[in-house]
């Protein structure tokens, strides 16, 4: 169990993490979601005692990280890729970590086997591909057979087979009763692995909810209706007790999956339709909406499509 309480980190004027409080519980995979620069990695570094919080505290099973005497058997972490000396072999890298925590040599071979790096165990790590690097980082995290596992962007650089493997691994680790805390900036990835979701943006907590709740609340389905007789269409829908929202460009959006109903109503009243299409707002869109206000690095590009259901430029007009 990881407990954050009012965790804050300030770098000079800039607030990287702002009063974060949440709990990561054992037995499930908890997704830690946020756009780039939201403070995910800073939060993880504070959990691991690498960065000192400006305010607040974080406890691991009730203890501060520096109070853990044999931390690798408590919490295993995959930080950013390739946080090691490239001239050292994979085996020696894991060996020096094992020794610092009094873990037996045999365990090094076991974790190498688990992540599938046995064949390159005696090779220098600087020749490793991104995917092999991630696997070595995961091997280091598993070394102490810890109760808590933290992965920072684990699927980065992995091939489809590797991604499938890490998903299965995380789920089985959680099923054994471990606490699994995974950061990502991809909602779609989290939707497949996480049971619980913590979303942050610009260092602030935006959501702390179960995945099921998040999906139920955010996967809105609606029907897009386009007609040259927009006013009459609105009247007809209104009379039928159907709520329609104008979303600009003469497009009407009707909540719920009622495409047939809308089509029949239009036919009955002799209305021309140019478009009648059922739509599903994806979780990715829901996530983007949630974090739109707090995205740090906007790409101001003409070609990037505006997020749906939101006026493009809302943010800067108000700001």
């Amino acid at each position, binding site marked *: *169990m990881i407990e954050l309480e009012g965790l804050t980190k300030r770098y000079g004027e800039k607030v990287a993490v702002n009063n974060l409080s949440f709990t990561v519980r*054992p*037995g499930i995979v908890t997704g830690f979601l946020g756009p780039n620069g939201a403070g995910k990695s800073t939060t993880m*570094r504070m959990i*691991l*005692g*690498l*960065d*000192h919080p400006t305010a607040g505290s974080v406890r691991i*099973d*009730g203890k501060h*990280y*520096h109070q*853990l*005497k*044999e*931390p*690798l*058997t408590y919490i295993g*972490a995959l*930080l*950013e890729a*390739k*946080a*090691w*000396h*490239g*001239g*050292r*072999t994979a085996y*020696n890298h894991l*060996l*020096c*970590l094992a*020794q*610092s*925590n*009094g*873990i*037996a*040599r*045999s*365990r090094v071979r*076991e974790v190498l086997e*688990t992540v599938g790096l046995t064949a390159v165990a005696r090779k220098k790590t600087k020749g490793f591909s991104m995917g092999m690097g991630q696997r070595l980082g995961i091997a*280091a995290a*598993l070394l*102490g*057979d*810890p*109760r*808590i596992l933290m992965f920072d962007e684990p699927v980065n650089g992995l091939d489809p087979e590797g991604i499938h493997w890490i998903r299965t691994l995380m*789920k*089985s*680790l959680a*099923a*054994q*009763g*471990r*606490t699994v805390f995974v950061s990502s900036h991809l909602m779609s990835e989290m939707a497949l692995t996480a049971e619980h979701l913590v979303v942050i943006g610009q260092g602030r907590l935006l959501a702390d909810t179960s995945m099921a709740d998040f999906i139920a609340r955010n996967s809105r389905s609606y029907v897009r209706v386009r007609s040259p007789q927009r006013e009459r269409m609105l009247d007809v829908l209104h009379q039928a007790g159907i709520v329609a929202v104008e979303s600009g460009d003469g497009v009407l959006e009707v909540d719920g999956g009622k495409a047939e109903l809308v089509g029949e109503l239009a036919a009955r009243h002799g209305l021309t339709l140019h478009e009648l299409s059922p739509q599903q707002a994806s979780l990715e869109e829901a996530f983007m909406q949630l974090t739109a206000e707090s995205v740090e690095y906007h790409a101001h590009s003409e070609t990037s499509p505006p997020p749906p259901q939101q006026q493009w430029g809302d943010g800067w007009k108000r700001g």
Partner: protein
Amino acid sequence: MSSPQPQMPQAAPSWEAAPGAAHPASGAAHPAPGSPYPGYTSPIPVVRTHLGHAIASEWTKIRSVRSTMWTLGVFVLLVVGIGLLTGVVVSSSSSDLAGENALSLGFFGLLLGSMCIITLGVLTTASEYGTGMIRTTMVACPSRGRVLAAKAIVFFLVAFVVTLVSSSVVAFLHVAMLADNGAKDPTGGEWLKGTVGIALYIALLGLLSLVVGSIIRHSAGAITIMIGTVLAPLVIALFMFSESLEAVRDALFEYSIPNQLSVFYANSLSQSGPSGWDPLWIILGVTAVAFGGAFALLEKRDV
């Protein structure tokens, strides 16, 4: 160096186990006895860690990178090679050493070789910041002081042993080669200073570099600072022509590291200044102060 590791049962936890297939020793999601925090309990026995574990880890680190072999290899080559060369030149030129002891010829090789020890010392700490390894290290051992202490102990012993062996080899060679050139037989005290003394001094100089590397966190920067520390006072002193600066010039000269090094061979370039075992106490003091600073900074700064 073997690490103090208890034998552990070979029963491996099965990672690929299907969800729910619990270990014999630990039911899935069973709380640890007496713990208010539920969760997984590993079948692997937990060992209380201490400085010994960190030392074993640092020993693995220092012996498993090529830069260690390179710097120490070049060091031995310089010390023994230059020592042999000066020995051959002096003995064949039939020059008279006029009662000087033969050990003093070892000075040149060690002065150049010290650059290698400085480099290795800096790399021991600073290279971890360059590669990002430091974060992995500090996660594995949250006691930052213990990490620095383990690095210092392992590096100091390696540097001391290698310097002691190389300088002793050169000393024996010189005494044997120059017996016919009027060289005085070194006394016991001179032997001690020319081998153990100089090895302690060079190892401490390396340790100071390690500490500077930990403070600067940048390999090239720290190496530059250390080489500057060794050479700058002597070079600056050379350009102090003005008489009003004579006192400063003499002090720079006498306390420059090359001159302090030569004190161990009793052929100091100046008559005043440090003598006997003074250089050892000076560098011990400086290193201790720097160590204190590095400890404090390590605790205070983010990794």
